[in-house]
Structures are given as C-alpha cells and as structure tokens.
C-alpha cells in the first residue's frame, strides 16, 4: 500500500458511493440486516472462520471467542438494525445520509465494534475504507466478505486495508476521507485529530472502562454468588480487553463486606477459568500484574487492610483494597474490590473516572436501583445493566454517548 494507492482507493469508494446513494435506503438496510443475521448464525462460513482464526491472531482462547460472539451477537438482529435505522435516520423530507466516504480506524481485537463500525456508515450509504487493527487482521475482511455474500454491489463500497500506523504518509492519505471514525487511545485520537482539516468530521471512540457496583442485597449469600458469577463472566469474556470489561467492583459496606465480595469473585473467577480459559498475555501486561500483586502484598505487610486472592499461576487476581482510590488496572482478569460505605461515597469514588466511564453492572439496591442508576448515568455511564450482561450491549447502545448511526450523518437524501 502506498499513499497514492490509498487515495486512489478512496476515490474509487467515493465513486461507488454515488451509485450507492441512488439505491433506496431501505434496500441497503435490508441487505445489512441480512448481514447481521448471517453473523448471528454460528454455522455461517464467516462466523466459523472467525471462531477458528481469531484465537490465534488475537491471543484469546477459543472458548472465549465462541462464547463472546454468541452472547454479543444474540441481540444484534436484523430487526434491531431496522428499528435503529428507523429511529436514528428518519428525517422530515427524507432519510439521513452519511459522508461521501468514511475512513474507519480500528483498534483492539474484539470483533463486535469492528462489525458495527463497518455496518454503520454503509447504513447511511457512505462507503467505508477500513484499516484493520494490528491485533485483529481477521474480522474486517470477513465482514466485507459477508457483505459480498449478501449484496455484491454493496460490497464495492467497502475496502479493507492493513498498514503500520507509524507510516505517517499512509496515515495522512487514509485520513483524507470526508469522515473518520477513530478508535484507540486518547493519544491516538489526538494524533488523528491533529492530521485532519477543519472541514472533515471526526467521530471519536477513545479508550474507556466499565465497573460493577454491588448494593447491600447483593452483598452476601446466594445473591452475592450470582452477582459474582456475572461479574466473572463480564471479566473473562475478551480477557478484560474491552471498554465493557469491568476493572473494579464497588461493594457497599465496610471492608468486611468487600472481603466477602472478594472471596465470591475469586471463587467465580477460578470456576470460569475452567470453562473460559484466559488467553495469552504479553510480557508487559504480565509484568504489570506481577508488580501490582507484589505491591498489594507489600502494602498488606505495611499494615494496610489490603488482601490479595490469586490463582496459583496468576491467571486471575482479586485485590480487596482498603479504600476507593483508583489504582492501575493490569487487565487480563485482574479485579479490584473497593468498599464504599454509602451512595455519596460511591459517587465520590467513581467521579474521577467519569470521563472514561462506559458502563456499569449494577445489582443489589432493591427499590433504590433506579436512583443509583440515575446517579451513575449522571457520572457518564451510558449503559447500566445486570452483572453478566456487560459484554452484550444492544445494537443501539450509544457508545461514548454517540448514537451509532446518527453520529455519522451528514445530510438528508430522498
């Protein structure tokens, strides 16, 4: 790939876009609905290939990929897309359309954001030039192939490229599209923004985190065990690599309550390791986890009320903290539990994280559930759900507060 070749491919997509926008919007949505149904089918060739190839490419275990896809794709039905399009694209006098061409910069290795990032611009009849994530060169080409299987003309409006992000000339050529959807760290997105002109549109999906909050009625007994199983599932799926992965659990009550939650989580993580084993871990992440475990043990030795529960081989770790102060999140199944005495303390604890807060798994507040959820939403959480459901958001989830289709709209077309 050269910068000139990328510009030529953008030009070809732009031309394909003229054809695409001559088609009725409904026809395009129907084709994409069929694509989603194809992905929901575990027997579809693309799904089979993804389940086979992604573990090797991205380092997840095969059961994690299988379970993660099954759970996340279940609610992404064709009907869900039709409803989403009707809700977000219908305008007085026509239907919303997207930019002439959209560049999609992917990151990470979780397939669902990739699928939606490609489907969304097409739903607005905007062709997409897609740069695969370095860690997942599998999903985007398979999405393109599934579109081709359903609608050959629509497939001409998607082009997947792969190149090293360090090549500035290539990056600048890629970013010359009318609209750029960028996923990555804050630094990556700032670097993208710095290379774009004022007339271009930038849709930002920065790094984010999720949390779990357990109220008094989920603090012991069977309710705690069930909540812990759910949080363990949310943590195990995609090995805590996604913005919907919880990194900390806030337990209402004292340190004893947090200790009970820690025990339940340790039990649940140990149990789920047998069913959904953790995948590979890079040396940097492994070193950070080891450092954080040893640091917690040293803090305990210094008299702090901190305790560590971990698998003998370090495949999961739960650290029960003495306070609610944020600490490093090594990921790869590393959870911290913080005791919070009341709702005010909960808000104070989460407030510093609000800029990056994606979702919260919430349980155990009985009649107060609505009020607590409202507080968490006011702190920036765009999704509140039960433990065990974090990794299967509905298709219309406003990730980063952005509506999945409407955020890509440019104008209206008949």
């Amino acid at each position, binding site marked *: 790939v050269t910068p000139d070749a990328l510009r030529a491919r953008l030009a070809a997509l732009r031309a394909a876009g003229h054809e695409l926008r001559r088609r009725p919007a409904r026809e395009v949505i129907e084709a994409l609905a069929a694509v989603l149904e194809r992905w929901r089918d575990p027997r579809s060739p693309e799904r089979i290939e993804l389940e086979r190839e992604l573990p090797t490419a991205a380092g997840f275990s095969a059961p994690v990929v299988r379970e993660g896809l099954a759970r996340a794709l279940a609610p992404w039905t064709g009907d869900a897309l039709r409803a989403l399009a009707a809700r977000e694209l219908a305008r007085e006098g026509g239907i919303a359309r997207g930019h002439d061409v959209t560049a999609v910069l992917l990151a990470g290795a979780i397939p669902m954001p990739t699928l939606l990032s490609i489907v969304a611009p097409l739903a607005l009849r905007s062709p997409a030039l897609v740069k695969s994530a370095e860690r997942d060169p599998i999903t985007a080409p398979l999405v393109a192939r599934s579109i081709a299987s359903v609608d050959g003309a629509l497939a001409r409006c998607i082009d997947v490229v792969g190149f090293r992000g360090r090549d500035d000339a290539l990056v600048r050529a890629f970013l010359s599209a009318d609209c750029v959807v960028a996923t990555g760290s804050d630094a990556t997105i700032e670097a993208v923004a710095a290379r774009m002109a004022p007339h271009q549109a930038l849709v930002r999906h920065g790094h984010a985190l999720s949390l779990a909050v357990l109220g008094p009625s989920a603090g012991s007994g069977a309710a705690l065990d069930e909540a812990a199983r759910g949080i363990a599932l949310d943590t195990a799926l995609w090995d805590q690599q996604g913005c919907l992965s919880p990194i900390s659990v806030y337990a209402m009550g004292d340190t004893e309550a947090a200790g009970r939650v820690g025990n339940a989580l340790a039990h649940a993580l140990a149990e789920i390791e047998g069913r959904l084993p953790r995948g590979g871990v890079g040396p*940097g992440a492994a070193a950070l986890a080891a450092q954080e475990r040893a640091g917690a043990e040293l803090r305990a030795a210094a008299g702090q009320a901190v305790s560590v529960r971990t698998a003998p081989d370090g495949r999961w770790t739960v650290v029960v903290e003495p306070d609610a102060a944020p600490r490093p999140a090594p990921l790869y199944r590393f959870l911290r539990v913080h005791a919070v005495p009341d709702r005010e303390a909960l808000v104070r604890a989460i407030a510093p994280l609000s800029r990056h807060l994606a979702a919260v798994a919430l349980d155990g507040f009985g009649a107060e559930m609505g009020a607590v959820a409202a507080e968490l939403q006011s702190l920036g959480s765009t999704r509140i759900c039960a433990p065990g459901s974090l990794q299967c958001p509905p298709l219309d989830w406003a990730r980063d507060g952005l509506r999945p289709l409407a955020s890509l709209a440019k104008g209206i077309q008949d």
Partner: protein
Amino acid sequence: VTAGDPARAELGAAVIAWTREADWRRDDARFAELALALFAFQFDHCAPYRRFCEARGRTPANVRRWQEIPAVPTSAFKELALTSFPSERTAHVFRTSGTSALQRGALRLDTLEVYEASLRASFHRHLLPDLAPGSRIVFRVLAPSTRETPDSSLSHMFDTMLREVGAAHSTHWIWGGALDVPRVLRELGADAQADVPVAVCGTAFAFVHLLEELEQRGLRFALPATARVMETGGFKGRSRSVAREELYAWIDDRLGVPAARIVNQYGMTELGSQFYDSVLREPSAARRKLAPPWTRVRILEPAGSEEVAPGEIGRIALLDLANTGSVCALETADLGRRIGDGFEVLGRDADAEQRGCSIAVDALLEDARA
C-alpha cells in the same frame, strides 16, 4: 559513612570502597556476602519489608543465595516509606517525576554518601572514560538545577557531576520549567567553535523539545568530535513520543553528535545506582547496558520468578548494594533482555498499544488524579 547504625555504616563503607576501585571487577563471592548482610540488616530495620519477606517464608535464617532475597516492587515507593533507618533521620528525599496531582514515588535517605559514590563512579566510567584525571568538561544540562528541583534525583546527579568535573562555564539549559532558547543557541554556537569536550545531558523529552526548537529555526550545529550526549527517561505522560533510533538520528542531524557517542542511562529514583550504555566505554562492542559490580540485574519471567534465557524478554529485577537505606532488592515493571554481559531495556508495557479499547493504565490514573 555517617549512617547511624554501625552495621549499616560498615556496609556503606564497603560499598563506597568498591565504587572507588578502578577495575570494576565482577566478584560474585564479595557481592553475595555484602548482599546477604545488607538483606539481614534491612530485614531487621524495615518492618514492612520484614513482614513482606516473612509472608514469603524468606528470612535471613533461610536465604542462602542473594537471588533468593525478596524483591519489592518499585511501585511500592509511591505509597510506603521503605526505610531501614528511623524516619526522623531522613535527611534527603528524592521523588519520582510527575505532576503534583499524581502520587509520586519517594526514596528517603539519611545519608547521600553511598548514593553519590555510586553515581559518581558510574557516570565517570561510562560518560567520561576519556577524561584525564584532574581535567574538566563543559556540561550543558537539559534539566533544572537542584535549586529549582531539590527533590529530583536526576538534577542531583547532574549537579553533583557538574560540581566535581564541570568546567566553570557549564550551564543548565532549563530554567523555570522552560528551555532557555537564547542561551542554548548562543552556547551551542560557542561549543561548536571551541575544541573542548562537551557533554550535553538531559531527559529524552527535553532533547525532543530542544531539537524541535532547532528544527523550527532551521538550525544545525556540529559539536566537536569529542562531544557526547547522555539522555535518560521515557515519554510517559508526554505529548509526544519518539523512538530511540529516531531520537539519535535527530540528535546527529541537529547537534552533530553521532549515535556512537550517545549514551542512554537507565535509572530510577528508587535506586542508588544507574546503568549506562556501553558505547563510549566499548565502542566496538554491541550497545548494551552494563551493571556496576555492586549491582546485579536479572531478567525474570514476566509473571514468574525464574530468570529467562539470554535474549528472551522478561521483567527487570535489580539488586543494588548502594540502596543501603531502603531495600536493596527491587523488581520493576520494565521489560528487558540480556545481551552478553549486559542488558537492554525495552520499556514499560511495550504491548500496551496491542490492547483493546480498555483504557491504558497510566491514562486512567492521570485522569483520576488530575
């Protein structure tokens, strides 16, 4: 050595004596003896460390090899005062870099004697190997002086060396948190004309700032062939990151100092000793970091405690006999690999960019504590 405890003073004196030896001979038996004695002292005098060791079943009674001495994570220095002397004897505190809102690591010292003896010996050996005894060198320091940042171990190191071997017109190029551009341009021009040795030393990020200034002005300097550069530190929390090879090519282009005369220093506030690239000392050998004989560097399995094979990537663990006042055995989250008789530092969390959309750890903490 003025440390209060006689046993500690004796250990400190032994380390200082070692730093003054010219041949830097590796002596495993001598190292092991001192390391085990220092471990026993720190076990007795640093209560959190003692309990940490006991929880691991390691005490001076059963630790037979220095490799068995429990290492504390460097991150612990952010939260705990790990000292092997009574806190009221604290005479100096070095803090890790970072904004005031961030929790900063701290090394508390009751004496600077061992610390300075170690830094002096390593700096001389690796950055000034060609400096004749009694002669001086022009220092251009891309870091604030200790008058501005008294708790910076880096500023302390530069000022110590500047005081001891710096030419009278040596200067700091960072003042009030900013690069003193007029002074830099004036002195670079003068240094390029003078045929005297000069050492430009500072943080990697400060070099980037300097090079950007020169680039914006379209300026290039050709420092004398005897000039050398020392850079240290990474780009964590900075607005711009530059690969080391790129930085060295840039320095060569704008200052006229080739990569063969650029020395990277690996050090950290929590350590009494530093590790330098071998390029000036052994110009014909492969670039690697060399450990002073009173230190040992081990490259451990990322998640375990065994050493990895030479060339394999692991996390860096250190035992530094110059850390007499705190804990001598440390483990870092930095990745590295062994190269011959030295090692290479690959940086922290080199695979962070490979993660998914879950937030980078440091970014989270920057936000949370800002």
